[in-house]
C-alpha cells in the first residue's frame, strides 16, 4: 500500500472526487495559482481549470455564502478556509444558512457542501491563530463534523464528506499535514460517524480525535512501560458521535480519559462524558477525566505554549489517576 502524507491524501481525495463528479469544485483563498496555503490543492488548478479551482478574495463570510448559494443550485462546493481561525468570520453562513437551509425550507434545499481547513494550534502562532473549533461546530444540528487523524482517514472521510448531501465540516490538523501513513489507492470512503480503535487495550480507554490521537498513542506507549494496557479510540467524527464505540470500549476497560485540543468548558469531551455517565455508568470504576488545553488563550512563548496544550505526559497522569495508581 502506498505511503502518503496527510496533505497528499487530502489532495488525492479532492482530485478523485473532482474527476468523478463535474459538480464538485474547490474554492478558497490561494487554492489555485498559489497551489494552496498548505499545498493541499497542489496541481488541481492545472488539472481542472479556474472554473473548478476558484481563488477567492479574503472574504470568508462572502465566499462561504457563495458556496451555500452554489449548493442551492445543485453544485457540490468544497470551501477551503485557510484556517478555521478565519472561518469564524463565516459562522453566520455555516450556522444560519448551511446548517438550517434544509430544515427551514421544509426539506426543499439540501446542502451538499464541504467546509474544510486546518484547525487547532500549530507552533507559536499566537492566540488568534491557535484555536480548536470543534465544540462550536459540533453543537449545531444540520451539520456533520469530522476530524481525521491519519492520512487514510483524511482521504476516506473527505471523500465521504464530498459525497454527503449535508454540510460537512472537515477539521484538518495543521500539524498533521506532513505526517505519513499508508493510504489505499482509489476508492476509500469512510462512513461518517464511525470511530476507530487505533490501538486495542484492556485497562483504560483514551478517547481522542485529530491531533490528539498522536498524543494518546504516545501516552499509551508510556503507559505500556508501566504495564498498563490503554485502548485508544479515535472518534474521527464528532457529529454524529459513535456512541456505541465509546460505550463498548468503556464497558471493556471500566476507566476512561478524554483528550482534546480545545478548552475544557463545554468541550467535545464533556459530550463524551455525558454519553459515558448515561450509558456506561454501571461499568465505571473511576470518574472520567479530561485532558484539554488550559483555560487561557494560547500564548506565543514556546514554553508556555507547551504547558498550555494536551500532552502525552498529561494523559498518562490522568490515566494513572483513573487507575488509582497515583
Amino acid at each position, binding site marked *: 500500500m502506498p505511503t502518503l502524507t496527510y496533505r497528499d491524501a487530502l489532495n488525492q481525495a479532492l482530485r478523485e472526487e473532482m474527476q468523478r463528479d463535474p459538480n464538485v469544485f474547490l474554492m478558497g483563498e490561494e487554492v489555485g495559482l498559489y497551489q494552496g496555503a498548505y499545498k493541499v490543492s497542489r496541481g488541481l488548478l492545472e488539472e481542472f481549470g479556474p472554473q473548478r479551482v476558484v481563488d477567492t478574495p479574503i*472574504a470568508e463570510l*462572502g465566499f462561504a455564502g457563495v458556496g451555500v*448559494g452554489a449548493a*442551492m443550485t445543485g453544485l457540490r462546493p468544497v470551501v477551503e478556509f485557510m484556517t478555521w481561525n478565519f472561518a469564524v468570520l463565516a459562522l453566520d453562513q455555516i450556522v444560519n444558512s448551511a446548517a438550517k437551509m*434544509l430544515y427551514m*425550507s421544509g426539506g426543499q*434545499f439540501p446542502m451538499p457542501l464541504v467546509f474544510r481547513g486546518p484547525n487547532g494550534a500549530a507552533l507559536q502562532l499566537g492566540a488568534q491563530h491557535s484555536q480548536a473549533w470543534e465544540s462550536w461546530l459540533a453543537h449545531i444540528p444540520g451539520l456533520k463534523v469530522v476530524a481525521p487523524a491519519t492520512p487514510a482517514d483524511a482521504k476516506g472521510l473527505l471523500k465521504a464528506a464530498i459525497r454527503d*448531501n*449535508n454540510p460537512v465540516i472537515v477539521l484538518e490538523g495543521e500539524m498533521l499535514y506532513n505526517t505519513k501513513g499508508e493510504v489505499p489507492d482509489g476508492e476509500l470512503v469512510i462512513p461518517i460517524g464511525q470511530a476507530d480503535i487505533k490501538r486495542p487495550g484492556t485497562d483504560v480507554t483514551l478517547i481522542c480525535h485529530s491531533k490528539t490521537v498522536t498524543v494518546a498513542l504516545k501516552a499509551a506507549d508510556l503507559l505500556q512501560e508501566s504495564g498498563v494496557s490503554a485502548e485508544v479510540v479515535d472518534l474521527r467524527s464528532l457529529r454524529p458521535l459513535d456512541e456505541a464505540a465509546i460505550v463498548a470500549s468503556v464497558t471493556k476497560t471500566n476507566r476512561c480519559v478524554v483528550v482534546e485540543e480545545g478548552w475544557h468548558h463545554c468541550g467535545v469531551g464533556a459530550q463524551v462524558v455525558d454519553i459515558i455517565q448515561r450509558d456506561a455508568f454501571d461499568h465505571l470504576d473511576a470518574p472520567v477525566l479530561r485532558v484539554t488545553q488550559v483555560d487561557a488563550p494560547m500564548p506565543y512563548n514556546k514554553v508556555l505554549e507547551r504547558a498550555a496544550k494536551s500532552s502525552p505526559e498529561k494523559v498518562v497522569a490522568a490515566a494513572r489517576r483513573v487507575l488509582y495508581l497515583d
Partner: protein
Amino acid sequence: MTPATAAQAKTKDPSAPSPLPPDRLRALLRQMLLVRRFEEKAAEAYALGKIGGFCHLYIGQEAVAVGSIAALRDDDYLICSYREHGQALVRGIPPAEVMAELFGKATGCSHGKGGSMHLFDAKRHFMGGHGIVGGHIPLAAGIGFGIKYKGGDQVCLCYFGEAAVNIGAFHEALNMAAVWKLPVVFLCENNRYGMGTAFERVAALTDVAEHAKSYDMESAEVDGMDVFAVYDAAARAVARAREGHPTLLEVRTYRFMGHSMSDPLHGVYRTKEEVEEQKKRDPIVGLTHHLRDEGLMDQAAIDALDAEVHAEVDAAVKFADESPDPEPAALMRDVLAD
C-alpha cells in the same frame, strides 16, 4: 417579454404611455392588489394570534416586487430577505400556501417549518426568505456562480433593504459578483428605515447606488412607487445580467406599516404626517389612475378585480385555518438529508 427600450425609459414620467400590453398591465395591478389584500389579512390574522413570531409586511412596497419580477423569466432565480411575502406571491406561490406557512401549517410552502421569514419554493426557483440582515446577499452571488458554472443563461434577482448595505456581506458579495461576472441583480429596497433607524443616521453614504462604483458595477436609482419605472430598470439590469454583468439597483420605496407587526407604525422615528404624506404616493393608486386615464380599465373593472383578489385571499385564510399542523414526526424530519 417586451424588451427594454428608450421609450420605456420615458415611463418614469407617469404621463408617458406604458410600453407593456394592456393585458400585462391588468396582471400587474392584480398582483399588486393581491399583495396588498394578502398583507392586510395577514395583519388581521396576526392580531388574532393565528400568525406568530415576527411578521414583516410589504404594504407600500408592492410596485417593487411586481415591477421587478415582471422582468424575470420563469426559470430565473429570486432570493429575498425576511420581508418577502410580496415576492413569494408575485412569483406565483399560491396565496393559500403562503398564508398556510404564516400560520405554521403543514400545507405551507415550507411545510410550517419556516414561517413568515423563511418562505421557500424550489420548483419556482424561489430561494427563500432569509432572516439575518444581508446574510443572503452572498447566497445570491453563489446562485449566480452556480448558473454560470453550468453554462445557463438565467439570472438571480436578490432583494434586500437599505440597512443591509451597512453589512460586510453586501460588500463581499458585490465584489465577488463583479470580479467573477456573475448574472446577479442586486436590488436594494430603500424604504428609508432599518427598523426604527433612519438610514442617514447610520450610513455615511445615503445614495446606495453609489456603492456600485466601488465594485465597478452598473447601477441605477429608481422610483419604487412607480411600477413601470421599476420594471424598466429591472428589465435593463436583467438583460445586463444575462450578459454576465451584475447591477446594483437602488429602488426608493416606503413601507406604510411598522417594521414588523410588533412595531409601531410611527412614533419616535417618523411622524404620522410623514407616513400620510408618503401614502399619497401609494403605488396601487398610481397604477389605477394610469389605467383609468389611459382608458385601459374603468373603475368598475378595477373594483371587480379587487373583489376577485379579496375572495382569493379569503380562501387562502380559510385554507390556512383549516389546514393541519405538521405531524409530530415532522419535528425531527429534514434536520439532515439522506
